[in-house]
Protein backbone atom coordinates (compact mmCIF):
# COMPACT_ATOMS: atom_id res chain seq x y z
CA UNK A 1 0.00 0.00 0.00
CA UNK A 2 1.41 3.44 -0.81
CA UNK A 3 2.87 5.22 2.20
CA UNK A 4 0.57 8.17 1.61
CA UNK A 5 -2.45 5.87 2.01
CA UNK A 6 -0.97 4.25 5.08
CA UNK A 7 -0.13 7.58 6.66
CA UNK A 8 -3.68 8.81 6.11
CA UNK A 9 -5.05 6.17 8.44
CA UNK A 10 -2.16 6.41 10.91
CA UNK A 11 -2.29 8.12 14.27
CA UNK A 12 0.47 10.34 12.89
CA UNK A 13 -2.12 12.27 10.90
CA UNK A 14 -3.62 13.45 14.18
CA UNK A 15 -0.37 13.58 16.10
CA UNK A 16 1.53 15.85 13.74
CA UNK A 17 -0.53 19.03 14.24
CA UNK A 18 -0.61 18.50 17.99
CA UNK A 19 3.10 17.87 17.96
CA UNK A 20 3.94 20.96 15.95
CA UNK A 21 1.71 23.19 18.05
CA UNK A 22 3.19 21.91 21.31
CA UNK A 23 6.75 22.10 19.99
CA UNK A 24 6.36 25.68 18.90
CA UNK A 25 4.71 26.52 22.22
CA UNK A 26 7.68 25.04 24.10
CA UNK A 27 10.23 26.67 21.81
CA UNK A 28 8.61 30.06 21.61
CA UNK A 29 9.35 30.64 25.28
CA UNK A 30 13.09 30.31 24.71
CA UNK A 31 13.91 31.01 21.11
CA UNK A 32 14.39 34.73 21.77
CA UNK A 33 17.05 33.94 24.35
CA UNK A 34 19.26 32.21 21.80
CA UNK A 35 22.57 33.98 21.48
CA UNK A 36 25.23 33.11 19.03
CA UNK A 37 26.04 29.45 19.31
CA UNK A 38 24.43 26.59 17.47
CA UNK A 39 24.90 24.16 20.30
CA UNK A 40 22.47 26.00 22.51
CA UNK A 41 20.09 26.27 19.54
CA UNK A 42 20.41 22.54 18.90
CA UNK A 43 19.77 21.71 22.54
CA UNK A 44 16.77 24.00 22.63
CA UNK A 45 15.31 22.27 19.57
CA UNK A 46 16.14 18.74 20.70
CA UNK A 47 14.86 19.24 24.25
CA UNK A 48 11.67 20.83 23.01
CA UNK A 49 11.26 18.06 20.45
CA UNK A 50 11.74 15.34 23.04
CA UNK A 51 9.38 17.00 25.48
CA UNK A 52 6.74 17.45 22.78
CA UNK A 53 7.28 14.41 20.57
CA UNK A 54 8.13 11.90 23.29
CA UNK A 55 4.67 11.88 24.89
CA UNK A 56 2.73 12.49 21.67
CA UNK A 57 4.56 9.76 19.77
CA UNK A 58 4.23 7.35 22.71
CA UNK A 59 0.48 7.97 22.67
CA UNK A 60 0.39 7.59 18.89
CA UNK A 61 2.41 4.40 19.25
CA UNK A 62 -0.12 3.10 21.77
CA UNK A 63 -2.86 3.78 19.28
CA UNK A 64 -1.00 2.00 16.50
CA UNK A 65 -0.21 -0.97 18.74
CA UNK A 66 -3.85 -1.26 19.69
CA UNK A 67 -4.87 -0.92 16.04
CA UNK A 68 -2.69 -3.82 14.99
CA UNK A 69 -3.95 -5.94 17.88
CA UNK A 70 -7.55 -5.15 17.02
CA UNK A 71 -6.84 -5.87 13.36
CA UNK A 72 -5.62 -9.34 14.22
CA UNK A 73 -2.11 -8.75 12.90
CA UNK A 74 -0.68 -10.25 16.09
CA UNK A 75 -2.27 -13.57 15.22
CA UNK A 76 -1.78 -13.45 11.48
CA UNK A 77 0.51 -15.96 9.83
CA UNK A 78 2.49 -13.20 8.16
CA UNK A 79 5.54 -13.58 6.00
CA UNK A 80 6.88 -10.21 7.07
CA UNK A 81 9.01 -10.20 10.19
CA UNK A 82 7.75 -8.62 13.37
CA UNK A 83 10.40 -5.94 13.01
CA UNK A 84 9.21 -5.05 9.51
CA UNK A 85 5.57 -4.88 10.65
CA UNK A 86 6.54 -2.65 13.53
CA UNK A 87 8.70 -0.40 11.37
CA UNK A 88 5.96 0.08 8.79
CA UNK A 89 3.40 0.82 11.49
CA UNK A 90 5.54 3.41 13.18
CA UNK A 91 7.03 4.97 10.08
CA UNK A 92 4.40 7.74 9.85
CA UNK A 93 4.63 8.45 13.59
CA UNK A 94 8.39 8.70 13.55
CA UNK A 95 8.15 10.68 10.33
CA UNK A 96 5.93 13.16 12.16
CA UNK A 97 8.53 13.42 14.93
CA UNK A 98 11.22 14.06 12.35
CA UNK A 99 9.11 16.73 10.66
CA UNK A 100 8.59 18.39 14.04
CA UNK A 101 12.31 18.27 14.77
CA UNK A 102 13.13 19.77 11.38
CA UNK A 103 10.45 22.41 11.94
CA UNK A 104 12.08 23.29 15.25
CA UNK A 105 15.47 23.50 13.56
CA UNK A 106 14.00 25.78 10.91
CA UNK A 107 12.60 28.04 13.63
CA UNK A 108 15.94 28.09 15.40
CA UNK A 109 17.65 28.71 12.06
CA UNK A 110 15.62 31.88 11.63
CA UNK A 111 16.62 33.05 15.11
CA UNK A 112 20.26 32.13 14.41
CA UNK A 113 20.43 33.75 10.97
CA UNK A 114 23.98 34.80 10.20
CA UNK A 115 25.59 32.80 12.99
CA UNK A 116 28.29 30.49 11.75
CA UNK A 117 28.02 26.80 12.61
CA UNK A 118 25.67 23.86 12.28
CA UNK A 119 23.35 21.92 14.59
CA UNK A 120 25.08 19.24 16.64
CA UNK A 121 24.20 15.88 15.00
CA UNK A 122 24.89 13.80 18.12
CA UNK A 123 22.40 15.77 20.21
CA UNK A 124 19.77 15.45 17.48
CA UNK A 125 20.46 11.74 17.06
CA UNK A 126 19.98 11.07 20.77
CA UNK A 127 16.79 13.12 20.75
CA UNK A 128 15.44 10.99 17.90
CA UNK A 129 16.55 7.85 19.71
CA UNK A 130 14.66 8.87 22.85
CA UNK A 131 11.55 9.69 20.82
CA UNK A 132 11.81 6.36 18.98
CA UNK A 133 12.19 4.46 22.25
CA UNK A 134 9.07 6.02 23.70
CA UNK A 135 7.15 5.42 20.50
CA UNK A 136 8.10 1.74 20.70
CA UNK A 137 7.15 1.62 24.36
CA UNK A 138 3.75 3.04 23.49
CA UNK A 139 3.38 0.55 20.67
CA UNK A 140 4.16 -2.40 22.95
CA UNK A 141 1.77 -1.12 25.62
CA UNK A 142 -0.92 -0.55 23.01
CA UNK A 143 -0.93 -4.24 22.17
CA UNK A 144 -2.33 -4.99 25.60
CA UNK A 145 -4.27 -1.84 26.48
CA UNK A 146 -7.50 -0.48 25.10
CA UNK A 147 -6.76 2.78 23.30
CA UNK A 148 -8.97 4.68 25.72
CA UNK A 149 -6.58 3.63 28.48
CA UNK A 150 -3.31 3.28 26.60
CA UNK A 151 -3.29 6.59 24.75
CA UNK A 152 -3.80 8.91 27.76
CA UNK A 153 -1.65 6.72 29.97
CA UNK A 154 1.31 6.92 27.62
CA UNK A 155 0.75 10.60 26.90
CA UNK A 156 0.74 11.64 30.55
CA UNK A 157 3.17 9.01 31.82
CA UNK A 158 5.84 9.83 29.26
CA UNK A 159 5.46 13.54 29.84
CA UNK A 160 5.87 13.06 33.59
CA UNK A 161 9.00 10.96 33.09
CA UNK A 162 10.53 13.52 30.76
CA UNK A 163 9.50 16.70 32.52
CA UNK A 164 9.48 15.95 36.24
CA UNK A 165 13.00 14.71 36.98
CA UNK A 166 14.30 18.19 36.13
CA UNK A 167 12.68 19.33 39.38
CA UNK A 168 14.22 16.57 41.51
CA UNK A 169 17.17 17.10 43.82
CA UNK A 170 18.50 13.69 42.82
CA UNK A 171 20.43 15.02 39.88
CA UNK A 172 21.45 11.77 38.22
CA UNK A 173 17.83 10.84 37.50
CA UNK A 174 17.34 13.89 35.38
CA UNK A 175 20.31 12.96 33.21
CA UNK A 176 18.70 9.67 32.25
CA UNK A 177 15.38 10.93 30.97
CA UNK A 178 16.51 12.35 27.68
CA UNK A 179 15.33 15.86 28.30
CA UNK A 180 18.05 17.29 30.43
CA UNK A 181 20.25 19.12 28.08
CA UNK A 182 17.54 21.72 28.53
CA UNK A 183 19.71 24.50 29.95
CA UNK A 184 22.85 23.69 28.04
CA UNK A 185 24.83 25.48 26.69
CA UNK A 186 26.14 29.00 26.74
CA UNK A 187 28.96 29.77 24.34
CA UNK A 188 31.62 29.09 26.95
CA UNK A 189 30.21 25.67 27.86
CA UNK A 190 29.51 22.42 26.03
CA UNK A 191 27.37 19.49 27.02
CA UNK A 192 28.76 16.69 29.08
CA UNK A 193 28.84 13.69 26.76
CA UNK A 194 28.24 11.33 29.65
CA UNK A 195 24.67 12.63 29.90
CA UNK A 196 24.05 11.93 26.23
CA UNK A 197 25.53 8.45 26.47
CA UNK A 198 23.43 7.67 29.54
CA UNK A 199 20.29 8.83 27.80
CA UNK A 200 21.16 6.79 24.74
CA UNK A 201 21.74 3.66 26.84
CA UNK A 202 18.40 4.07 28.61
CA UNK A 203 16.61 4.76 25.33
CA UNK A 204 18.12 1.74 23.59
CA UNK A 205 17.20 -0.54 26.49
CA UNK A 206 13.68 0.85 26.59
CA UNK A 207 13.34 0.27 22.87
CA UNK A 208 14.74 -3.25 23.22
CA UNK A 209 12.42 -4.16 26.08
CA UNK A 210 9.46 -2.69 24.20
CA UNK A 211 10.33 -4.66 21.09
CA UNK A 212 10.60 -7.87 23.09
CA UNK A 213 7.28 -7.18 24.77
CA UNK A 214 5.60 -6.53 21.46
CA UNK A 215 7.17 -9.15 19.27
CA UNK A 216 6.59 -12.22 21.38
CA UNK A 217 3.79 -14.29 19.97
CA UNK A 218 0.52 -14.40 21.82
CA UNK A 219 0.48 -17.38 24.14
CA UNK A 220 4.24 -17.80 23.91
CA UNK A 221 6.30 -17.78 27.06
CA UNK A 222 7.00 -14.12 27.72
CA UNK A 223 10.57 -13.01 27.39
CA UNK A 224 10.40 -11.60 30.90
CA UNK A 225 14.09 -11.97 31.47
CA UNK A 226 14.79 -9.64 28.57
CA UNK A 227 11.90 -7.28 29.21
CA UNK A 228 12.84 -6.76 32.85
CA UNK A 229 16.56 -7.31 32.48
CA UNK A 230 17.25 -4.75 29.79
CA UNK A 231 16.19 -1.70 31.84
CA UNK A 232 18.15 -3.01 34.81
CA UNK A 233 21.25 -3.44 32.68
CA UNK A 234 20.70 0.04 31.26
CA UNK A 235 20.53 1.63 34.70
CA UNK A 236 23.60 -0.34 35.76
CA UNK A 237 25.50 1.02 32.75
CA UNK A 238 24.10 4.55 32.76
CA UNK A 239 24.14 5.28 36.48
CA UNK A 240 27.93 5.32 36.87
CA UNK A 241 28.12 7.72 33.95
CA UNK A 242 25.93 10.36 35.54
CA UNK A 243 26.22 9.64 39.27
CA UNK A 244 28.71 12.47 39.89
CA UNK A 245 27.14 15.03 37.62
CA UNK A 246 25.62 18.20 38.97
CA UNK A 247 22.25 19.65 38.06
CA UNK A 248 23.35 20.69 34.59
CA UNK A 249 24.83 18.48 31.94
CA UNK A 250 27.49 20.93 30.87
CA UNK A 251 31.23 21.39 31.18
CA UNK A 252 33.53 24.31 30.27
CA UNK A 253 34.31 24.59 26.60
CA UNK A 254 37.95 24.09 25.74
CA UNK A 255 38.11 24.36 21.99
CA UNK A 256 36.83 26.51 19.17
CA UNK A 257 38.76 29.76 19.70
CA UNK A 258 39.71 32.23 17.03
CA UNK A 259 42.87 34.15 17.98
CA UNK A 260 44.88 37.13 16.79
CA UNK A 261 47.64 39.38 18.16
CA UNK A 262 47.41 42.98 19.21
CA UNK A 263 50.28 44.93 20.73
CA UNK A 264 52.11 41.75 21.63
CA UNK A 265 49.07 40.26 23.37
CA UNK A 266 47.22 37.28 21.96
CA UNK A 267 43.49 37.92 21.87
CA UNK A 268 41.09 34.98 21.54
CA UNK A 269 37.34 34.91 21.07
CA UNK A 270 34.99 32.00 20.41
CA UNK A 271 34.96 31.24 16.71
CA UNK A 272 31.31 32.26 16.46
CA UNK A 273 32.49 35.77 17.37
CA UNK A 274 35.48 35.88 15.08
CA UNK A 275 34.12 38.92 13.27
CA UNK A 276 34.44 40.88 16.49
CA UNK A 277 38.01 39.85 17.22
CA UNK A 278 39.36 43.28 16.19
CA UNK A 279 36.88 45.11 18.40
CA UNK A 280 37.66 42.78 21.28
CA UNK A 281 41.37 43.50 20.91
CA UNK A 282 40.77 47.25 20.83
CA UNK A 283 38.84 47.07 24.11
CA UNK A 284 40.51 44.28 26.04
CA UNK A 285 44.23 44.78 25.39
CA UNK A 286 44.53 48.40 26.62
CA UNK A 287 42.22 47.57 29.52
CA UNK A 288 44.42 44.62 30.49
CA UNK A 289 47.47 46.89 30.46
CA UNK A 290 45.68 49.45 32.64
CA UNK A 291 44.64 46.72 35.05
CA UNK A 292 48.14 45.26 35.22
CA UNK A 293 49.59 48.67 35.92
CA UNK A 294 46.97 49.46 38.55
CA UNK A 295 47.13 46.17 40.41
CA UNK A 296 50.82 45.44 40.16
CA UNK A 297 50.09 42.15 38.43
CA UNK A 298 52.22 41.09 35.47
CA UNK A 299 50.61 42.05 32.19
CA UNK A 300 48.89 39.08 30.51
CA UNK A 301 50.30 37.53 27.38
CA UNK A 302 46.85 36.42 26.40
CA UNK A 303 43.31 37.67 26.92
CA UNK A 304 40.74 35.06 26.00
CA UNK A 305 37.11 34.03 26.13
CA UNK A 306 38.27 30.47 26.62
CA UNK A 307 39.84 28.81 29.63
CA UNK A 308 42.55 30.96 31.23
CA UNK A 309 45.28 28.94 32.85
CA UNK A 310 47.98 30.58 34.94
CA UNK A 311 48.55 34.27 35.45
CA UNK A 312 49.61 34.85 31.87
CA UNK A 313 46.05 34.46 30.56
CA UNK A 314 43.14 36.62 31.55
CA UNK A 315 39.53 35.94 30.74
CA UNK A 316 36.91 38.22 29.33
CA UNK A 317 33.59 37.73 27.54
CA UNK A 318 32.12 39.43 24.55
CA UNK A 319 28.64 38.03 24.05
CA UNK A 320 26.38 39.46 21.36
CA UNK A 321 25.10 42.89 22.33
CA UNK A 322 27.81 43.44 24.95
CA UNK A 323 28.89 47.06 25.32
CA UNK A 324 32.51 48.04 25.96
CA UNK A 325 31.72 48.62 29.64
CA UNK A 326 30.36 45.06 29.88
CA UNK A 327 33.55 43.69 28.36
CA UNK A 328 35.70 45.75 30.71
CA UNK A 329 33.68 44.68 33.73
CA UNK A 330 34.03 41.02 32.73
CA UNK A 331 37.78 41.35 32.22
CA UNK A 332 38.19 43.12 35.57
CA UNK A 333 36.12 40.75 37.66
CA UNK A 334 37.82 37.81 35.95
CA UNK A 335 40.76 38.58 38.23
CA UNK A 336 38.70 37.72 41.30
CA UNK A 337 38.29 34.17 42.60
CA UNK A 338 35.45 32.30 40.90
CA UNK A 339 34.49 30.43 44.07
CA UNK A 340 34.51 31.55 47.71
CA UNK A 341 36.72 29.63 50.15
CA UNK A 342 35.10 26.95 52.27
CA UNK A 343 34.83 28.76 55.60
CA UNK A 344 32.66 28.41 58.62
CA UNK A 345 30.01 30.88 59.68
CA UNK A 346 31.15 34.43 60.22
CA UNK A 347 33.32 34.72 57.10
CA UNK A 348 33.31 38.34 56.15
CA UNK A 349 35.47 38.17 53.04
CA UNK A 350 32.44 38.40 50.77
CA UNK A 351 32.09 42.06 51.71
CA UNK A 352 35.23 42.76 49.71
CA UNK A 353 33.73 41.49 46.45
CA UNK A 354 31.65 44.53 45.56
CA UNK A 355 34.27 47.22 46.26
CA UNK A 356 37.00 45.19 44.55
CA UNK A 357 34.84 44.58 41.48
CA UNK A 358 34.05 48.27 41.23
CA UNK A 359 37.65 49.31 41.77
CA UNK A 360 38.97 46.89 39.15
CA UNK A 361 36.31 47.89 36.64
CA UNK A 362 37.12 51.57 37.13
CA UNK A 363 40.81 50.78 36.79
CA UNK A 364 40.08 48.96 33.54
CA UNK A 365 38.41 52.08 32.23
CA UNK A 366 34.70 51.33 32.66
CA UNK A 367 32.36 54.27 33.09
CA UNK A 368 31.31 55.18 36.62
CA UNK A 369 27.61 54.94 35.85
CA UNK A 370 27.96 51.45 34.38
CA UNK A 371 29.99 50.31 37.38
CA UNK A 372 27.51 51.76 39.84
CA UNK A 373 24.65 50.02 38.05
CA UNK A 374 26.42 46.70 38.48
CA UNK A 375 27.92 46.99 41.94
CA UNK A 376 25.69 49.48 43.68
CA UNK A 377 26.50 52.90 45.14
CA UNK A 378 28.18 51.65 48.33
CA UNK A 379 30.72 49.51 46.50
CA UNK A 380 31.34 52.21 43.91
CA UNK A 381 31.81 54.77 46.71
CA UNK A 382 34.36 52.54 48.42
CA UNK A 383 36.14 52.01 45.11
CA UNK A 384 36.24 55.74 44.43
CA UNK A 385 37.72 56.35 47.88
CA UNK A 386 40.36 53.69 47.19
CA UNK A 387 41.19 55.37 43.90
CA UNK A 388 41.98 58.48 45.91
CA UNK A 389 44.81 56.69 47.68
CA UNK A 390 48.41 56.77 46.44
CA UNK A 391 49.16 54.07 43.87
CA UNK A 392 51.19 51.90 46.23
CA UNK A 393 48.42 52.10 48.87
CA UNK A 394 45.89 51.09 46.26
CA UNK A 395 47.91 47.99 45.36
CA UNK A 396 48.16 47.06 49.06
CA UNK A 397 44.40 47.58 49.46
CA UNK A 398 43.73 45.42 46.41
CA UNK A 399 45.99 42.60 47.59
CA UNK A 400 44.61 42.63 51.09
CA UNK A 401 41.01 42.46 49.91
CA UNK A 402 41.92 39.80 47.36
CA UNK A 403 43.30 37.75 50.25
CA UNK A 404 40.05 38.35 52.12
CA UNK A 405 38.18 36.77 49.20
CA UNK A 406 40.51 33.80 49.09
CA UNK A 407 41.09 33.04 52.75
CA UNK A 408 38.99 32.56 55.78
CA UNK A 409 41.30 34.37 58.21
CA UNK A 410 41.54 37.75 56.51
CA UNK A 411 38.95 40.47 56.96
CA UNK A 412 38.28 43.04 54.24
CA UNK A 413 39.90 46.40 54.80
CA UNK A 414 37.92 49.61 55.00
CA UNK A 415 38.99 52.62 53.03
CA UNK A 416 39.52 55.80 54.97
CA UNK A 417 40.85 58.75 53.14
CA UNK A 418 43.47 60.76 54.93
Amino acid at each position, binding site marked *: *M*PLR*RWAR*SSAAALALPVLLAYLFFVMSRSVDALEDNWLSATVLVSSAAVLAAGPVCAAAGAWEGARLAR*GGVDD*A*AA*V*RSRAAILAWSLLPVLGAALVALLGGLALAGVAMAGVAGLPDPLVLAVALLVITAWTLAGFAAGRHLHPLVGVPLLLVGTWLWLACPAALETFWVRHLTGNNLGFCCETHTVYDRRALYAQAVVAVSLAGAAYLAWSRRRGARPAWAGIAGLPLVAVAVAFPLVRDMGPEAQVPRTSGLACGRSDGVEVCVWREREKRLGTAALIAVPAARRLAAGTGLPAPRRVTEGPATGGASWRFAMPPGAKPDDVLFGLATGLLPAEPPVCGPGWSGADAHGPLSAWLALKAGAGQDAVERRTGPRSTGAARRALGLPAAEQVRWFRHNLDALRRCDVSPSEVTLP
Partner: protein
Amino acid sequence: MPISFEGCAFGYRRGTRVFTRLDLDVPAGRTALIGPNGCGKSTLLGLAASALRPRAGRVSYQGLDPFRRGNLARYRALVGWMPQRVRPLPGLTAREQVGYAGWLMGMSHGLAWRRSLEALEAVELGPVADTRCAELSGGQLRRVGLAQTLVHDAEVVLLDEPTAGLDPEQRERFRGIVARIGERGHLIVSTHETADLAETYDSVVVLDGDRVRYAGPVAGLGAASESTRKV
Protein backbone atom coordinates in the same frame (compact mmCIF):
# COMPACT_ATOMS: atom_id res chain seq x y z
CA MET B 1 0.81 -32.66 -3.36
CA PRO B 2 -1.08 -33.10 -0.08
CA ILE B 3 -0.89 -31.06 3.07
CA SER B 4 0.36 -33.52 5.65
CA PHE B 5 -0.19 -33.64 9.37
CA GLU B 6 2.14 -36.22 10.89
CA GLY B 7 1.68 -37.12 14.54
CA CYS B 8 0.58 -33.57 15.37
CA ALA B 9 -0.16 -32.77 18.99
CA PHE B 10 -1.55 -29.44 20.03
CA GLY B 11 -3.21 -27.90 23.04
CA TYR B 12 -3.95 -24.34 24.03
CA ARG B 13 -2.26 -22.88 27.03
CA ARG B 14 -5.24 -23.07 29.31
CA GLY B 15 -4.99 -26.82 29.36
CA THR B 16 -7.42 -27.98 26.71
CA ARG B 17 -5.80 -30.60 24.54
CA VAL B 18 -7.14 -30.47 21.02
CA PHE B 19 -5.01 -33.09 19.30
CA THR B 20 -2.88 -35.76 20.89
CA ARG B 21 -1.77 -37.34 17.65
CA LEU B 22 -3.18 -36.24 14.35
CA ASP B 23 -2.19 -38.04 11.16
CA LEU B 24 -3.86 -36.75 8.06
CA ASP B 25 -3.15 -36.04 4.40
CA VAL B 26 -5.39 -33.48 2.75
CA PRO B 27 -5.28 -33.90 -1.03
CA ALA B 28 -5.32 -31.11 -3.59
CA GLY B 29 -8.72 -29.77 -4.62
CA ARG B 30 -11.68 -28.58 -2.57
CA THR B 31 -11.90 -30.14 0.85
CA ALA B 32 -14.59 -29.62 3.41
CA LEU B 33 -13.63 -29.92 7.04
CA ILE B 34 -16.61 -30.86 9.11
CA GLY B 35 -17.28 -31.90 12.67
CA PRO B 36 -19.06 -30.76 15.82
CA ASN B 37 -18.19 -27.54 17.65
CA GLY B 38 -14.91 -27.77 19.52
CA CYS B 39 -13.61 -30.75 17.58
CA GLY B 40 -10.57 -28.85 16.36
CA LYS B 41 -11.49 -27.58 12.90
CA SER B 42 -10.16 -24.06 13.51
CA THR B 43 -7.11 -25.46 15.25
CA LEU B 44 -6.37 -27.69 12.31
CA LEU B 45 -6.59 -24.73 9.94
CA GLY B 46 -4.42 -22.67 12.30
CA LEU B 47 -1.83 -25.43 12.23
CA ALA B 48 -2.00 -25.64 8.46
CA ALA B 49 -1.56 -21.86 8.26
CA SER B 50 1.43 -22.09 10.64
CA ALA B 51 -0.30 -19.57 12.89
CA LEU B 52 -0.19 -22.32 15.54
CA ARG B 53 2.83 -24.45 16.22
CA PRO B 54 2.31 -28.15 16.97
CA ARG B 55 3.74 -29.31 20.28
CA ALA B 56 4.81 -32.51 18.63
CA GLY B 57 4.80 -33.84 15.09
CA ARG B 58 4.82 -31.68 12.02
CA VAL B 59 2.74 -30.10 9.32
CA SER B 60 4.15 -29.90 5.83
CA TYR B 61 3.28 -28.88 2.33
CA GLN B 62 5.53 -29.60 -0.64
CA GLY B 63 7.98 -31.03 1.85
CA LEU B 64 8.21 -27.72 3.70
CA ASP B 65 7.86 -27.91 7.47
CA PRO B 66 7.19 -24.28 8.39
CA PHE B 67 8.88 -24.62 11.76
CA ARG B 68 12.14 -25.92 10.44
CA ARG B 69 14.79 -23.24 10.28
CA GLY B 70 14.41 -20.91 7.31
CA ASN B 71 11.13 -22.40 6.07
CA LEU B 72 8.53 -20.22 7.73
CA ALA B 73 8.41 -17.33 5.26
CA ARG B 74 8.50 -19.65 2.22
CA TYR B 75 5.74 -21.82 3.64
CA ARG B 76 3.54 -18.92 4.59
CA ALA B 77 3.90 -17.34 1.17
CA LEU B 78 2.17 -20.46 -0.22
CA VAL B 79 -0.75 -20.28 2.19
CA GLY B 80 -3.72 -17.95 2.53
CA TRP B 81 -5.71 -18.21 5.74
CA MET B 82 -8.99 -16.58 6.59
CA PRO B 83 -9.73 -16.97 10.29
CA GLN B 84 -13.26 -17.28 11.55
CA ARG B 85 -13.40 -13.66 12.54
CA VAL B 86 -12.23 -11.14 9.97
CA ARG B 87 -10.84 -8.13 11.83
CA PRO B 88 -9.87 -5.22 9.59
CA LEU B 89 -7.47 -2.58 10.83
CA PRO B 90 -9.39 0.46 12.04
CA GLY B 91 -9.34 3.28 9.54
CA LEU B 92 -8.54 1.28 6.41
CA THR B 93 -10.63 0.98 3.26
CA ALA B 94 -11.29 -2.44 1.76
CA ARG B 95 -8.53 -1.98 -0.79
CA GLU B 96 -6.06 -0.70 1.79
CA GLN B 97 -6.86 -3.67 4.00
CA VAL B 98 -6.27 -6.15 1.21
CA GLY B 99 -3.14 -4.32 0.07
CA TYR B 100 -1.81 -4.37 3.61
CA ALA B 101 -2.52 -8.10 3.85
CA GLY B 102 -0.60 -8.62 0.61
CA TRP B 103 2.35 -6.73 2.01
CA LEU B 104 2.18 -8.83 5.19
CA MET B 105 2.42 -11.88 2.97
CA GLY B 106 5.69 -10.67 1.50
CA MET B 107 4.62 -8.72 -1.57
CA SER B 108 6.12 -5.34 -2.31
CA HIS B 109 3.92 -2.36 -1.48
CA GLY B 110 3.42 -1.51 -5.13
CA LEU B 111 2.53 -5.02 -6.22
CA ALA B 112 0.24 -5.60 -3.25
CA TRP B 113 -1.56 -2.36 -4.00
CA ARG B 114 -2.09 -3.28 -7.65
CA ARG B 115 -3.19 -6.81 -6.87
CA SER B 116 -5.53 -5.71 -4.10
CA LEU B 117 -8.04 -4.41 -6.61
CA GLU B 118 -7.94 -7.64 -8.63
CA ALA B 119 -8.49 -9.65 -5.44
CA LEU B 120 -11.44 -7.49 -4.49
CA GLU B 121 -12.91 -7.85 -7.96
CA ALA B 122 -12.51 -11.61 -7.72
CA VAL B 123 -14.75 -11.57 -4.67
CA GLU B 124 -17.14 -9.09 -6.31
CA LEU B 125 -16.18 -6.18 -4.09
CA GLY B 126 -14.61 -3.93 -6.75
CA PRO B 127 -17.29 -1.24 -6.39
CA VAL B 128 -16.67 -0.83 -2.65
CA ALA B 129 -12.88 -0.94 -2.81
CA ASP B 130 -12.55 2.56 -1.45
CA THR B 131 -15.16 2.15 1.26
CA ARG B 132 -13.91 1.89 4.80
CA CYS B 133 -14.17 -1.60 6.20
CA ALA B 134 -16.12 -0.30 9.17
CA GLU B 135 -18.91 0.64 6.78
CA LEU B 136 -19.17 -2.78 5.11
CA SER B 137 -21.75 -5.42 5.95
CA GLY B 138 -20.81 -8.69 7.64
CA GLY B 139 -20.95 -10.55 4.35
CA GLN B 140 -18.85 -7.98 2.56
CA LEU B 141 -16.34 -8.08 5.37
CA ARG B 142 -16.03 -11.86 4.95
CA ARG B 143 -15.32 -11.32 1.30
CA VAL B 144 -12.65 -8.75 2.20
CA GLY B 145 -11.15 -11.50 4.34
CA LEU B 146 -11.33 -13.83 1.38
CA ALA B 147 -9.65 -11.27 -0.86
CA GLN B 148 -6.86 -11.04 1.72
CA THR B 149 -6.20 -14.74 1.30
CA LEU B 150 -6.17 -14.42 -2.49
CA VAL B 151 -4.10 -11.30 -2.96
CA HIS B 152 -0.75 -13.08 -2.85
CA ASP B 153 -1.80 -15.99 -5.08
CA ALA B 154 -1.67 -18.62 -2.39
CA GLU B 155 -1.54 -22.23 -3.48
CA VAL B 156 -3.34 -23.30 -0.33
CA VAL B 157 -6.42 -21.40 0.77
CA LEU B 158 -7.78 -22.08 4.24
CA LEU B 159 -11.20 -20.71 5.11
CA ASP B 160 -12.60 -21.04 8.60
CA GLU B 161 -16.39 -21.14 8.52
CA PRO B 162 -16.64 -18.51 5.81
CA THR B 163 -20.41 -18.60 5.53
CA ALA B 164 -21.32 -18.73 9.21
CA GLY B 165 -23.83 -16.05 10.11
CA LEU B 166 -24.51 -15.00 6.52
CA ASP B 167 -27.99 -14.76 5.09
CA PRO B 168 -28.95 -17.31 2.38
CA GLU B 169 -28.29 -14.92 -0.51
CA GLN B 170 -24.83 -13.95 0.74
CA ARG B 171 -24.11 -17.60 1.49
CA GLU B 172 -24.99 -18.60 -2.05
CA ARG B 173 -22.80 -15.87 -3.50
CA PHE B 174 -19.96 -16.87 -1.21
CA ARG B 175 -20.28 -20.50 -2.25
CA GLY B 176 -19.94 -19.51 -5.87
CA ILE B 177 -16.77 -17.58 -5.15
CA VAL B 178 -15.37 -20.45 -3.08
CA ALA B 179 -16.09 -22.88 -5.91
CA ARG B 180 -14.09 -20.74 -8.30
CA ILE B 181 -11.18 -20.46 -5.88
CA GLY B 182 -11.10 -24.21 -5.47
CA GLU B 183 -10.18 -24.65 -9.11
CA ARG B 184 -6.80 -23.01 -8.49
CA GLY B 185 -5.25 -25.42 -5.99
CA HIS B 186 -5.80 -26.48 -2.41
CA LEU B 187 -8.90 -25.19 -0.73
CA ILE B 188 -9.81 -26.32 2.76
CA VAL B 189 -13.01 -24.97 4.21
CA SER B 190 -14.25 -25.70 7.68
CA THR B 191 -18.02 -25.69 7.68
CA HIS B 192 -21.14 -26.87 9.44
CA GLU B 193 -23.11 -27.04 6.22
CA THR B 194 -23.33 -30.55 4.92
CA ALA B 195 -26.29 -30.19 2.60
CA ASP B 196 -24.33 -29.41 -0.55
CA LEU B 197 -21.02 -31.12 0.10
CA ALA B 198 -21.11 -33.13 -3.12
CA GLU B 199 -21.74 -30.07 -5.30
CA THR B 200 -19.09 -27.86 -3.74
CA TYR B 201 -16.26 -30.10 -2.57
CA ASP B 202 -14.13 -32.92 -3.90
CA SER B 203 -13.23 -34.46 -0.57
CA VAL B 204 -14.20 -34.25 3.02
CA VAL B 205 -12.50 -34.64 6.38
CA VAL B 206 -14.65 -35.44 9.37
CA LEU B 207 -13.12 -34.57 12.71
CA ASP B 208 -14.54 -35.78 15.96
CA GLY B 209 -12.83 -35.18 19.25
CA ASP B 210 -9.18 -35.63 18.52
CA ARG B 211 -9.86 -38.22 15.84
CA VAL B 212 -10.25 -38.20 12.10
CA ARG B 213 -13.49 -40.08 11.57
CA TYR B 214 -13.33 -39.93 7.83
CA ALA B 215 -11.02 -38.53 5.19
CA GLY B 216 -11.69 -39.18 1.54
CA PRO B 217 -13.94 -38.39 -1.39
CA VAL B 218 -17.31 -36.87 -0.60
CA ALA B 219 -18.90 -39.81 -2.36
CA GLY B 220 -17.45 -42.21 0.19
CA LEU B 221 -18.84 -40.35 3.13
CA GLY B 222 -22.18 -42.17 2.98
CA ALA B 223 -20.48 -45.39 3.98
CA ALA B 224 -19.27 -43.83 7.15
CA SER B 225 -22.85 -43.42 8.23
CA GLU B 226 -22.13 -43.35 11.91
CA SER B 227 -19.76 -40.46 11.46
CA THR B 228 -22.23 -38.61 9.31
CA ARG B 229 -25.00 -39.00 11.86
CA LYS B 230 -22.78 -37.57 14.51
CA VAL B 231 -21.94 -34.61 12.31
